[in-house]
C-alpha cells in the first residue's frame, strides 16, 4: 500500500489555533515509530474556522481533511484512516466521500490559491512540481511586448482595490526611458479584516516571486522590493527562504536561467503605518522617510522610487501573472465578467459560519459567497450587511445581496471591491458603531498632511461618537454629509478620499438606525452602551453580590441572597455588571 502522508496546516491562523501542538505530537509519534507515515508542513487551505486542520493522503479512501484536530485526537483518527475507515469524527472534506464542507470548496475557483494549503511553502521543489517557474521559462522566450500584450489582453485589474488595468500600468512603466527601473510588491495589507495577502505569502511565496520576476523582465527593471507589514512575521520568514532558494536555482539574481536578464529582490519591513499602503507613501517609506503621500503626477511609472520609473502591484495581482502567462489570456477571460475577468480572493470574517479564505470567479453574487461558499450565518441572528473594502469601503445591505462581484457593480453600491476583506454583520451589529469604528481607524491613521483628512475625519468622529452616546442632533446628519464631501475633494491620497465611505454607505442604507440613535435615543442593535438600560431580573438573581462589588459607581444595592436592584439615576451604563453576572440575571436593552 502507498505510504500515508500527513499534512498539517501551519499558517498563522493554524498556529494560533494550536496546529503546532498537533504537529509536535505527530513528530513524537514518528520518532517512536519511524516510517509509519510522511509528515509534511503546509500553509492555509482557507477554512480557518476549522483550524487546526490536518490532511491525510495515501489510503484507498483518497484525501481526507480533518478539522479542529487536537494532539489527543490525531493518533486515533490517523489509525482509523490507515485501517481504511473514514475517521469517525472531525472529517470536514473528503475526496471520495460526502463530507460537511465539500460544498464550500466546490463553489470556489482557485488560481491564486491553487497551491496554498497543498504544498510545503518552504519547498521550492514542491512549487516546481506543481508547474512553478514554467511561466518564467516561457516568458524569457517571449519578447517584452508579447508578455505585456498577454497581460493586457487578460483584462487583469489591480487586486489591491482600485482595479486599474495591470497591463496598462505595465505599458507605462515599460515605455519609460531610464537606465534604472524598479518594481514593487505592495504587501502592506493594512485593512482590518483582510488577510488574503498574508495567506498567499505564507502559503505560496514563490508564486509572488515568479510574477515579479516576469514583470521585471517585461518592464525592464533590474531591482525590486517587497514591502511587507511587520505584523506578518511568518510571511516575511517564508519570503526570505523563498528568495534564497530562487537565487540558488538562478530564478533570481544575475543572468537568470542563463539569459542576459538580471533581477535583484529585497524585502522591506513596514514599521506600522496604514497610509504606507498608498503607493507614493510606500515609496517614501522605502526611502527611509515618513510615509506621507506626494502629489501625482508625476506617476510612479515616470518618477517613483528614488525618482526612477517604478511599477507597483499588490500581492494578489502578482500572484495572477504566472497563471495567465502559462494558460493564456483567453483562459483567464473565460472566468469572471467581461470587465472584471478572473477570480478574486476574499477573506470572510465576522458573523459568518465559514470564516476564512476563499477564491471565487468574479461575477458571483454576494449572496452565493455568503450562503454557498461561506456556509451562511454563524448564529440564528439574521444577516444585516456585509462590509467590503475595509476603511475605504462600505456596508452592503441585505436588499443588495444579489449584487455581483465585479469592480463596477460593487462601486455602484457605494462600497468598493477593495483588497478583499468581507466582514459579515448580523442584527446584533450597530451600523452607527461600525461607521464610528472605521472613522476612528482612519482618523488614527491619517498621516496629517491634508487638512481635510486630518481635521475633517476628527470632526466626523466626534459627531459619530456623540450620536452613539445619545447626544446627537438631527442636523448632525447634514454635517456628516457636508464634511464627507469636502474630505473626498480635499485629500491627496486614497486614504482621505475614501475615508468617508463607511459613513456615507451606512447613511444611505441604514439611516433609520442613525435616526433611532438621534431621535429616540435608542440603539436598535443593543450595542451602544450609553443608550442601553441595564436591569436585574428578580427571578434570576440569586444575590451573589458579584455585580454590586464590580459596579464602579456603587449603584447596585441589595442584601446577600436577595435579588439586587440597579439605581437607574446613578447608572453610567458601563456594562460591568452585565459582564460579571454568571446567572444571566442582568438584561440590557
Amino acid at each position, binding site marked *: 500500500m502507498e505510504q500515508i502522508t500527513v499534512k498539517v496546516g501551519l499558517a*498563522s491562523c493554524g498556529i494560533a*489555533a494550536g496546529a503546532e501542538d498537533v504537529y509536535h505530537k505527530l513528530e513524537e509519534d514518528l520518532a517512536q515509530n519511524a516510517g509509519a507515515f510522511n509528515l509534511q508542513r503546509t500553509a492555509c487551505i482557507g477554512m480557518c474556522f476549522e483550524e487546526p486542520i490536518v490532511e491525510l493522503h495515501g489510503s484507498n479512501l483518497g484525501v481526507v481533511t480533518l478539522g479542529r484536530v487536537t494532539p489527543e485526537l490525531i493518533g486515533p483518527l490517523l489509525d482509523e484512516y490507515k485501517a481504511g475507515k473514514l475517521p469517525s469524527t472531525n472529517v470536514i472534506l473528503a475526496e471520495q466521500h460526502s463530507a460537511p464542507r465539500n460544498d464550500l470548496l466546490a463553489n470556489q475557483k482557485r488560481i491564486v490559491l491553487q497551491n496554498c494549503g497543498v504544498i510545503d511553502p518552504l519547498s521550492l521543489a514542491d512549487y516546481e512540481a506543481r508547474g512553478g517557474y514554467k511561466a518564467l521559462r516561457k516568458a524569457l522566450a517571449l519578447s517584452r511586448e508579447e508578455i505585456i500584450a498577454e497581460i493586457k489582453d487578460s483584462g487583469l485589474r489591480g487586486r489591491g482595490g482600485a482595479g486599474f488595468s495591470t497591463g496598462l500600468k505595465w505599458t507605462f512603466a515599460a515605455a519609460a526611458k531610464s537606465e534604472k527601473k524598479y518594481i514593487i510588491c505592495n504587501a502592506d495589507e493594512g485593512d*482590518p*479584516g483582510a488577510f488574503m495577502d498574508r495567506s498567499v505569502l505564507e502559503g505560496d511565496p514563490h508564486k509572488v516571486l515568479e510574477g515579479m520576476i516576469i514583470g521585471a523582465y517585461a518592464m525592464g527593471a533590474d531591482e525590486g522590493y517587497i514591502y511587507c507589514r511587520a505584523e506578518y512575521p511568518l510571511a516575511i520568514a517564508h519570503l526570505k527562504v523563498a528568495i534564497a532558494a530562487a537565487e540558488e536555482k538562478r530564478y533570481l539574481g544575475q543572468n537568470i536561467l542563463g539569459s542576459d536578464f538580471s533581477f535583484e529582490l529585497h524585502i522591506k*519591513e513596514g*514599521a506600522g503605518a496604514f497610509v504606507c499602503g498608498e503607493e507614493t507613501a510606500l515609496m517614501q517609506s522605502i526611502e527611509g522617510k515618513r510615509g506621507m503621500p506626494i502629489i501625482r503626477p508625476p506617476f510612479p511609472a515616470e518618477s517613483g522610487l528614488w525618482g526612477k520609473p517604478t511599477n507597483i502591484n499588490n500581492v494578489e495581482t502578482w500572484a495572477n501573472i504566472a497563471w495567465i502567462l502559462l494558460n493564456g489570456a483567453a483562459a483567464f477571460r473565460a472566468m469572471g465578467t467581461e470587465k472584471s475577468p478572473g477570480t478574486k480572493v476574499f477573506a470572510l470574517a465576522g458573523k459568518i459560519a465559514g470564516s476564512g479564505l476563499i477564491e471565487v470567479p468574479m461575477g458571483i453574487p454576494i449572496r452565493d459567497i455568503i450562503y454557498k461558499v461561506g456556509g451562511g450565518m454563524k448564529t440564528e441572528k439574521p444577516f444585516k450587511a456585509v462590509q467590503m473594502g475595509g476603511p475605504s469601503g462600505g456596508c452592503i445591505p441585505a436588499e443588495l445581496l444579489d449584487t455581483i462581484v465585479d469592480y463596477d457593480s460593487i462601486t455602484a453600491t457605494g462600497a468598493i471591491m477593495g483588497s478583499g476583506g468581507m466582514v459579515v454583520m448580523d442584527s446584533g451589529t450597530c451600523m452607527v458603531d461600525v461607521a464610528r469604528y472605521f472613522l476612528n481607524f482612519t482618523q488614527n491613521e491619517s498621516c496629517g498632511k491634508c487638512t481635510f483628512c486630518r481635521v475633517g475625519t476628527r470632526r466626523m468622529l466626534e459627531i459619530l461618537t456623540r450620536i452613539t452616546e445619545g447626544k446627537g442632533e438631527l442636523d448632525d446628519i447634514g454635517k456628516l454629509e457636508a464634511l464627507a464631501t469636502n474630505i473626498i475633494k480635499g485629500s491627496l491620497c486614497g486614504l482621505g478620499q475614501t475615508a468617508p465611505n463607511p459613513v456615507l454607505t451606512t447613511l444611505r442604507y441604514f439611516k433609520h438606525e442613525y435616526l433611532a440613535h438621534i431621535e429616540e435615543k435608542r440603539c436598535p442593535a443593543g450595542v451602544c452602551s450609553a443608550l442601553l438600560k441595564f436591569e436585574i431580573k428578580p427571578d434570576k438573581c440569586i444575590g451573589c453580590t458579584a455585580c454590586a462589588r464590580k459596579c464602579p459607581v456603587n449603584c447596585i444595592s441589595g442584601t446577600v441572597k436577595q435579588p439586587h436592584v440597579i439605581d437607574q439615576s446613578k447608572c453610567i451604563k458601563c456594562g460591568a455588571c452585565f459582564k460579571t453576572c454568571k446567572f444571566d440575571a442582568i438584561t440590557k436593552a
Partner: protein
Amino acid sequence: MEQDFGKLDAIISAYRGKKGVLIPLLQEAQNLEGYLSRPVLKYISEKMNVPAAEIYGVVTFYSMFRLVPQGKHIIRVCKGTACHVSDADGIKEALIENLKLEGGQVTTQDMQFTLMEVACLGCCSLAPVIMVDDQTFGKLTPQAIPGILEKFSF
C-alpha cells in the same frame, strides 16, 4: 556614565553608506533594548550624519517605534473589524483589570507587561485575538485572560 554603543556600532556599520536604510536600522537598534532612548537616537544621528530632527520625525510617524522603556512581554490587542464586532473592547478591559493598569498607564509597575493595540493581526476567524510577544491567542473571553497572563509571569 558613558553608554556602551558596541552593539549599536555593529548595526550602524552594516548599514552605513547604503540608501534607504534609516527605518531598518532603527528597527534593529530598537531590538537591543526594546525601545529607542534619547542617547541612542543622538548617537545614530551623529554616526549616520542624519539630523536628529529627521530621525525623530520618522520615529514618531511609525507606530512600531517606542521612545520609553517597555515591559518584558508585549501584549497586542487586535482591534480589527472582526475583533471589534466580537467585543475586543471587553478583552482589553479584562487585560487592563488583570494587569492593574490605571489612568492610561500601559506598562505594569514591575515592567513585566506592556499593553498596546494593533490594527489587525489577520487571524479574523479566531476573533477576538491578542498576541503576547509572538504567540497568538484566539476565540478569547474576558475569563480566559488571567490564565494567559499566568503563562508569561516569570
